[in-house]
């Protein structure tokens, strides 16, 4: 393993994050505050509790997941797209590093950044509602797996995109709707039976459900199913990335 290269890529990417630390953190914090105002105060006033948890506290895991998903995709896709766009990718391709090491550097950094943002949102939420984490280990595991999976997904988008507009199209058209419809702000049990079944095809449901369970022991699907589905998405993304590097798709001619 070329650990020095992995650390170099990771550090370089993190440096980019810390260079714009204020912008990187202020945006999710403001969004969280707005969500609490809109959903917590306006809607929460009408919904007292969901399965024994106050509405404000109930949406916290969903809010964190919403940020983790969008930030992981955006950080990882931009991280690999920018060297492709600027041409500096030549250096990565000609260096003695394997595809796995390259992914570890880029995806590791993207996941680390989004986890940091997730933790900031968790801390911000604590100012508004009483947040408890019943199973910190499971919460950390879901956070890590989700950040890794969606960073890998972002990495794939960054490799596939051939323009800045394409970087945005999948997060905007697919990920954001899936997240909003994945139970970030509600339990899917409140939906009519038909829509509950449709929701089960939404992968985000499993991520949010598992993560919420680790907070309040309240879940839409069982922990094992959530964990299994999260691991499955991770494996699918890994397989696609592995295929990309094997074939050189969009990287090597």
């Amino acid at each position, binding site marked *: 393993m*070329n650990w*020095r*290269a992995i*650390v*170099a*890529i990771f550090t*370089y990417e993190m440096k980019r994050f810390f*260079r714009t630390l204020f912008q990187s953190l202020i945006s999710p914090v403001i969004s969280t505050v707005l969500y609490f105002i809109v959903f917590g105060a306006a809607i929460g006033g009408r919904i007292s509790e969901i399965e024994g948890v106050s509405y404000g506290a109930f949406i916290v895991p969903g809010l964190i997941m919403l940020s983790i998903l969008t930030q992981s995709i955006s950080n990882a896709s931009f991280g690999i797209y920018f060297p492709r766009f*600027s*041409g*500096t990718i*030549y*250096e*990565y*391709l*000609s*260096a*003695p*590093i394997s595809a796995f090491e390259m992914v570890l550097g880029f995806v590791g950094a993207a996941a680390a950044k989004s986890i940091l943002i997730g933790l900031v949102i968790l801390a911000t939420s604590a100012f508004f509602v009483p947040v408890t984490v019943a199973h910190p280990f499971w919460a950390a595991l879901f956070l890590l797996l989700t950040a890794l999976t969606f960073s890998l997904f972002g990495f794939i988008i960054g490799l596939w995109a051939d323009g800045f507009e394409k970087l945005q199209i999948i997060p905007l058209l697919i990920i954001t709707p899936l997240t909003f419809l994945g139970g970030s702000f509600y339990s899917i049990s409140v939906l009519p039976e038909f829509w509950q079944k449709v929701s089960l095809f939404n992968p985000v449901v499993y991520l949010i459900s598992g993560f919420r369970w680790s907070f309040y022991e309240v879940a839409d699907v069982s922990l094992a199913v959530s964990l299994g589905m999260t691991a499955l998405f991770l494996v699918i993304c890994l397989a696609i990335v592995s295929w990309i590097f094997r074939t*050189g798709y969009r990287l*090597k*001619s």
Partner: protein
Amino acid sequence: MNPIIQIKSLSKSYKSGLHALKDINLEIMRGEIFALLGPNGAGKTTLISTICGIVNKTSGAVLVDGHDNVTDFRATRKMIGLVPQELHLSIFESVWDTVTFSRKLFGRGDSPQHVEKILKQLSLWDKKDDKIMTLSGGMKRRVLIAKALAHEPQILFLDEPTAGVDVELRKDMWNVVRELRSTGVTIILTTHYIEEAEEMADRVGVINKGQMILVEDKNALMKKMGQKKLTLVLDKPLAAVPKKLSKFNLSLSKDGNELSYAFDAREGRPDISGLLKEIDTAKISYSDLHTEQNSLEDIFMGLVKQ
């Protein structure tokens, strides 16, 4: 000298049907400066990129110091530094940071002394803390060389190193390349400037339409293929070449003031003394004489036109 790079039957085809490299066989000797010449689209950059691992080959093999560049890519890539044709740099980084990053990317530990040495060698030391976006084109080119040298490679590929660089900086670059060679680095450069190859290369390869059409020692090539011309500046203009001199391949300038004798150095020793004796006998006086040899550029143009 033993070869440091061996290219065996290397071919590269694209899905579009373009056959960019056709059965290339080439050996680069350890410690030499090898110039790869060819017109635009000849396959120079594709060849370099294939050796460095940026482009996938279709068939054939590339061995770097005996290691296959695909199956043993870590060993080969550690030995190679690449300076690309375009100015591909992270513009928000400082010179120091970007060069240090390159060193680590190639698996080498921190060595501020080495980074300082190459920055000084490339006259970049006083710019070490400057952001790359503030540098001129020539300075950015130097940063690319510094990045390529950061991991102490044994082989350096320079893809059009002086493209778009002014004359003074070009000569500085040549000095840098010579210095590098003196430290034992093998240098392969592609260039459009034949003058550059003529000035620096030990051997020259000419590639055209994906085929290596010639590989030759530069001096031997110029000696072997060079046309020479002896020109006499006459005291009085002539109306025509005298018949007595017709056995020589002579030509007269339009104004009749210069008589030229063209000969091929490959065809044995030219009879220059015989020609001068005959000129004396014909009572043609001259005030000056000079010889010209075909440049590498003439040879190159001749080859690619074939």
